[in-house]
């Protein structure tokens, strides 16, 4: 079978302020019709540039194809994309090559209806009359399993959920029956249950239409789920190419081995009750740490019926007509030296819960107890003192450090605020903290932009540690990091926990990471904890339907354990917004095993 796409020696350069940069060097691989090729790599590997080159879209970002052939087997005969005319390329884009981007909200124009955007494309490429184009659009929406397609056509993008929007984007990419579909991180911005739907959909469309799929991702689990063949990239070069089974079973390149080793696989902790360090490629697995105190020890942090609501104001008088029930009757206890993970999808209230603990948002009702003391109504000086005991690490290491402040200053700030150290002693403490989080002391006088994401997150950890907190709230603290860096930061956190007896409230959407690092898990849905218990129990024996759905949606980084993703659950997503005056029922739990409780 001849290849649909044959990339040979592709080299792409960008002109930047610091001179020319080669983003992709000598990349070669092929894609056959009906085949899914996954291009996988960490940030900066050149995977997106490669896919954009295939559409010749790199030129719009200041790049240029410097060398190589990009043979594409178009309907009219093979051609070299690197040398085709602009007119030829316009005829290919969106017609013979479809593309799906990461962010479904920004790839649809918010001021036009879905129908208008789809019909425009169809009329342009297919020369259809308006009515015929509309009929075809309905057909396409049905094909991507969107319920009530006629009605959807007259809706605007913001009226659809993230998953629905990504379906629309896929429908648009499929509109002209492309021979090749390029999907650039199409599910990275989506929740895991929606990711499962979209992955299932792309796979089904591929089988039905026989198109080829070039799938760009950073996620090894998604690769294992989707790929026929895999191209591993690093630093703009291809490291390894091969069938997915071979890549996972017998990776040849050191880098591939390292990448695979660092990926946690859901289910691998099944008969291990305690958290374990992540595997760090090239480094020996750190020795197992002394096990944490039992969960029934006196809790350091306790939430009792915590409820946080945000008012929705409408109308001329800005009256409160409804409330967003972000956190509804949440209770849990976190003991010293343990990690409790809050898992759930976007909007489930896990971040609001974490922020409520620090009183960064004001709870509506309920009680927060720290070390046995009620801190819910603390104000002024007492509230500031509380913040010595509870610190936070944020998700985005690029936004959570002040770009205009030297790192040493930022780490010193909490100690300065609380007057715990000054002068020479302060400088020493900061230097010690840098050692503690394994950052070179030469970084002390640097600014955040000089550091990588993982290093910045270490600074954030040092800062949180500086005042000797008892509890650290880590809100998606490793989500933005590449997998190998993520493993290092997680291991550092676990090490610190063992050494200092820290408790973590670990907020995450990544089930595989949660399985590895937590002692206890609480699953949140629509503002409530639907299931809570020891990690081993919750993962081995999920009782709540939502927990089960969540766990079943997670792709596993092992092609032998591919999942059959059920077709879309088209039931409307229930909303946490209720009209003013709504009385929320209390959260009642049934204990299914010691410490393992499920919402009834």
């Amino acid at each position, binding site marked *: 079978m001849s290849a649909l796409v044959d990339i040979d020696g592709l080299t792409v350069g960008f002109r930047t302020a*610091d001179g020319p940069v080669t983003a992709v060097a000598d990349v070669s691989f092929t894609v056959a019709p009906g085949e899914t090729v996954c291009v996988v790599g960490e940030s900066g590997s050149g995977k997106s540039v490669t896919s954009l080159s295939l559409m010749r879209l790199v030129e719009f970002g200041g790049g240029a194809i410097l060398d190589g052939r990009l043979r594409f087997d178009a309907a009219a005969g093979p051609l070299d994309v690197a040398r085709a005319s602009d007119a030829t390329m316009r005829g290919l884009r969106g017609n013979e090559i479809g593309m799906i981007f990461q962010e479904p909200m920004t790839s649809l124009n918010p001021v036009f209806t879905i129908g208008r955007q789809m019909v425009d494309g169809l009329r342009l490429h297919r020369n259809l009359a308006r009515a015929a184009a509309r009929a075809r659009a309905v057909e396409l929406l049905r094909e991507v399993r969107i319920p009530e397609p006629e009605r959807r056509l007259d809706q605007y993008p913001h009226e659809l959920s993230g998953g629905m929007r990504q379906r629309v984007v896929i429908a648009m990419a499929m509109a002209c029956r492309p021979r090749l579909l390029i999907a650039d991180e199409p599910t990275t911005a989506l929740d895991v249950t929606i990711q499962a739907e979209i992955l299932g959909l792309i796979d089904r469309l591929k089988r039905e239409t026989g198109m080829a799929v070039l799938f760009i991702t950073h996620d090894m689990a998604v690769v294992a789920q989707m790929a026929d063949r895999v191209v591993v990239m690093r630093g703009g070069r291809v490291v390894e190419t091969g069938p997915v089974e071979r890549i996972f079973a017998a990776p040849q390149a050191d880098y591939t081995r390292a990448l695979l080793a660092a990926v946690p696989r859901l289910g691998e902790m099944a008969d291990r009750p305690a958290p374990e360090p992540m595997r760090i490629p090239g480094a020996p697995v750190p020795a197992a740490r002394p096990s944490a105190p039992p969960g029934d020890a006196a809790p350091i942090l306790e939430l009792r019926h915590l409820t946080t609501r945000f008012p929705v104001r409408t109308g001329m008088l800005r009256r409160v007509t409804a409330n967003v029930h972000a956190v509804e009757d949440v209770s849990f206890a976190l003991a010293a030296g343990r990690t409790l993970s809050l898992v759930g999808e976007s909007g489930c209230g896990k971040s609001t819960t974490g922020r409520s603990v*620090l009183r*960064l948002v004001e709870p509506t009702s309920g009680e927060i107890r720290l070390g046995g003391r009620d801190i819910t109504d603390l104000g002024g000086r007492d509230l*500031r*003192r509380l*913040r*010595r005991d*509870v*610190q*936070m690490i*944020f*998700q*985005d290491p690029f*936004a*959570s*450090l*002040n*770009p*205009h*402040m030297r790192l040493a200053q930022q780490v010193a*700030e*909490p100690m300065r*605020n*609380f007057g715990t150290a000054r002068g020479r002693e302060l400088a020493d403490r900061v230097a010690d903290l840098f050692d503690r989080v394994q950052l070179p002391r030469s970084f002390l006088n640097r*600014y955040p*932009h*000089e*550091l*990588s994401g993982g*290093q910045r997150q270490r600074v*954030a950890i040092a*800062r949180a540690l500086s*005042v000797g907190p008892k509890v650290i709230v880590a809100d998606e603290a490793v989500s933005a990091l590449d997998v190998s860096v993520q493993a290092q930061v997680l291991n550092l956190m676990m090490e610190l926990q063992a050494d200092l007896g820290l408790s973590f409230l670990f907020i995450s959407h990544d089930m595989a990471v949660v399985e590895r690092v937590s002692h206890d898990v609480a699953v949140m849905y629509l503002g409530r904890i639907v299931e809570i218990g020891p990690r081993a129990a919750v993962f081995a024996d999920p009782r709540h339907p939502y927990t089960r759905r969540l766990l079943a949606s997670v792709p596993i980084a092992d092609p032998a354990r591919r999942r059959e993703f059920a077709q879309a659950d088209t039931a409307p997503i229930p909303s946490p917004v209720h009209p003013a005056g709504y009385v929320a029922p209390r959260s009642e739990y049934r204990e299914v095993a010691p410490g393992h409780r499920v919402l009834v």
Partner: protein
Amino acid sequence: MTTRGIVGGALVALMLALAILAPLLVPDTWATEMDMLARLSPPSLAHPLGTDQLGRDLMWRVMLGARTSILIAGAAVLMSLVIGLPLGVVSGYFGGWIDNVLMRIVDATLAFPALLLALTISAVLGPNLRNTIIAIGVAFTPYLARIIRGEALRVARMPYIEGARAAGTTDTMIILRHVLPNIMAPIIVQATISLAFAILAEAGLSFLGLGTQPPDSSWGLMIQASRDYLDRAPWTALVPGAAVALTVLGLNMFGDVLRDVLDPRHAMPAKPA
């Protein structure tokens, strides 16, 4: 250093030098001395930039006028910064009712065109140097306050602000340590642009007779005086006009470069991690 920085810096330095040095080196009389035989004469060896309707040498007048124009513009912008910065930062950082009250006042002032407002203030207080500064300063305050508020609002929502709060930093310290340094760059750019507009506003006020009063000379006053002779002696408008244009251009270029220099991301070569 870029060409833009060199050109902008040179222009600003030149104008500053004129404003400071010219009054020390050039006797006032040179600019007021009338050569009745050479009225409205085009540029010549005796008068390199020509003369005005009273036969006064335009080169000396434009050099001495620099002091008035730049002094008024600089002082006026400084004044609008002194009022606008706390207003904008408090409004943007705290939000809520403080923001509402302050910004409604600002909006009400914004409803008047800046020049009209300056005119009114100058007319009410009486035209002299100090009142011209006050008039322009007050008229420019709401624009700066608005922009500063927007920047403060943007920065106040950054995770590092929440991080600072979580680290127990007080509001005052958050504003001083985290908000101000991060909004300085756009404010400086805006201030340099405001300087340019303030020079034009001074010219406008003087043109209408509500700014600098004779015998002091300022660029605006010179342009005003030239209006009856534009057809016969265009250089009488072009010379002070060019001085205004070059200063504005220099300030804009300088502002751009200043912003880059103040940003640590540009100040040092980024080291790959």
